[in-house]
């Protein structure tokens, strides 16, 4: 019976190695310099790269982070510092937790109604807002959890010295949870950079390099979607290469986040000596 659970672990590892293996082999094969330096070519002709997709994806993700992280931080700080005894705010915190797992395509649909229809065409701002809507619950939940870990004694010592609550939040609690919150932000960025569905009908896609956030903008994930569904072998290869880059980026983010957390626990351990 216990062997069966070992088989379960083997089953999981089997898929992991198959997926990552295919991704690395196929992706690596088709990465070349022109992928990053040229914009998309016409279908059928084996030319062109994905420069506009990389740039567009970067712009959309940065914009979404700039909007989503502060709001998530503010909400998380309130839940941890002011709202711990209030039944109302505990319910709100649980609702935010539920929003973390809400289907992402719904954010896209809502942003379509809010930003695409009034502006009369697809735009990158709507895409960024949809991604920010995904990011806010994630950041606020991780911030709340990290701030909860800060021991009360730190806060009480500051109060005893005459500090105000805002000073405690600014100078003590946030500093103590700095690493954890940063980890949460990195993981949030990793998560939204892999999202496709909210961008499908908000920022849509663009064949040309564009920096205008009020117009459609290309993104890596939507381009992978279009290219993989297309009948052209060249585009399939480019989709593999782009997926490889995307997964590589996300893996690096996760590794950095893990290293940060590990270093923090190492520091605590060293201090205890």
């Amino acid at each position, binding site marked *: *019976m*216990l062997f069966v*659970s*070992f*088989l*379960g*672990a083997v089953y*999981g*590892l089997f*898929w*992991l190695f198959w*997926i990552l293996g*295919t*991704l690395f082999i196929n992706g690596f094969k088709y990465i070349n310099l022109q992928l990053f330096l040229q914009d998309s070519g016409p279908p059928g002709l084996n030319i062109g790269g994905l420069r506009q997709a990389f740039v567009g994806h970067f712009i959309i993700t940065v914009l979404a982070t700039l909007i989503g992280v502060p709001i*998530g931080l*503010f*909400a998380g700080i*309130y*839940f941890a*510092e*002011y*709202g711990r005894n209030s039944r109302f705010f505990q*319910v*709100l915190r*649980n*609702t*935010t937790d*539920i*929003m973390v*797992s*809400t*289907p*992402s*395509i*719904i954010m896209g*649909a*809502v942003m379509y109604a*809010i930003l695409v229809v009034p502006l009369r065409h697809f735009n990158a701002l709507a895409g960024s807002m949809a991604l920010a*809507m995904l990011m*806010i619950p994630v950041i606020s939940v991780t911030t709340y959890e990290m701030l909860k870990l800060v021991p009360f004694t730190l806060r009480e010592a500051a109060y005893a010295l005459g500090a*105000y*609550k*805002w000073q405690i*939040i600014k100078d003590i609690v946030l500093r103590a949870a700095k690493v954890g919150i940063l980890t949460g932000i990195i993981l949030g960025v990793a998560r939204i950079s*892999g999202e*496709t*569905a909210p961008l*499908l*009908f908000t920022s*849509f896609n663009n064949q040309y390099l564009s920096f205008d956030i009020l117009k459609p903008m290309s993104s890596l994930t939507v381009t*992978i*979607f279009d290219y*993989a*569904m297309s009948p052209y072998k060249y585009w399939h290869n480019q989709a*593999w290469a782009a*997926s490889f880059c995307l*997964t590589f980026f*996300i*893996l690096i983010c*996760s590794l950095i986040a893990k290293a940060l957390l590990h270093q923090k626990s190492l520091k605590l351990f060293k201090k205890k000596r």
Partner: protein
Amino acid sequence: MKGSFWIERFTKFFLGFWAVFAGLIFPLVIFLILLYESRLAIQHFGVIKFLTSSAWDPVKQNFGALPMIAGTLISTFIAMLIAAPISIGIAIFITELAPSWMKGVIVSAVELLAAIPSIIYGMWGFLILAQDMRFKVEPLLQKIFAPIPIIGKLFSGTPTGVDVLTTSLVLSIMIIPFMASVVKDAFNLVPSVMKESAYGLGATKWEVIKDVVIPYTSSGIAGGLILSTGRALGETMAVTFLAGNVTHVPTSLFQPFTTITVALANQFTEADTPLYLSSLFYLSLILFVISFALLILAKLMVLRLEKRWKT
């Protein structure tokens, strides 16, 4: 200091505003906008008729949600059926069986599975798994199961690779990391005292897991299962690649089908009439309500576990 008093007031108000925004205004606005955009379809089709009609005809402007809802529920259910025992197995392996050096490796591997973006699951599934399913696995399954009288019906039809089986399989791979980590966390909540007293009475490892760990964490496991189901419900990209996009209620594992998310992803930009678009919003509303309800249920179950056992 008067200045600090006002900073204090302002901080509390400012942070509190964003907290209320994130926890209350945000979901409410989503719900209201979806409701508002679906009003045309709700007026036109009503509630019962939309939920039970299998028609999806953009030409005659007749829309019904049954194929999408059925597809969403069927694929999620089968995915959970496959993923639940495996995730529990992985969690048991991580917490009880693995030597400490292997624990970190397996946990990292499972987290790696979770970090892969869903579109890559879709692309890999479409370009690689579906081909293998179509030419190797599904004909084999058909040969084995088709002769059996009732179950055979489930394996009928020409295998194309893009169907209920492949979709549910990939969905299950996607939710395994999440489910395994929730169950693993629940298992870690079991106090060692309880396990050790069972061992002291002469129980075997499997008996301890079966009779002590699993009953203790049953609420947490159930909550985790429902949480993962909620995640799988909203999965768009992997399903879009693998579902086949045929608007009917599937009667066999080898038939292509559609889900709410597939319909949205494929048809949102093709909706050329207000009623069409409104019907798609109506679908999103249904999806939002189903997933929200499931997630609330999961949360309540997990909270019950924590309340019962945390001293």
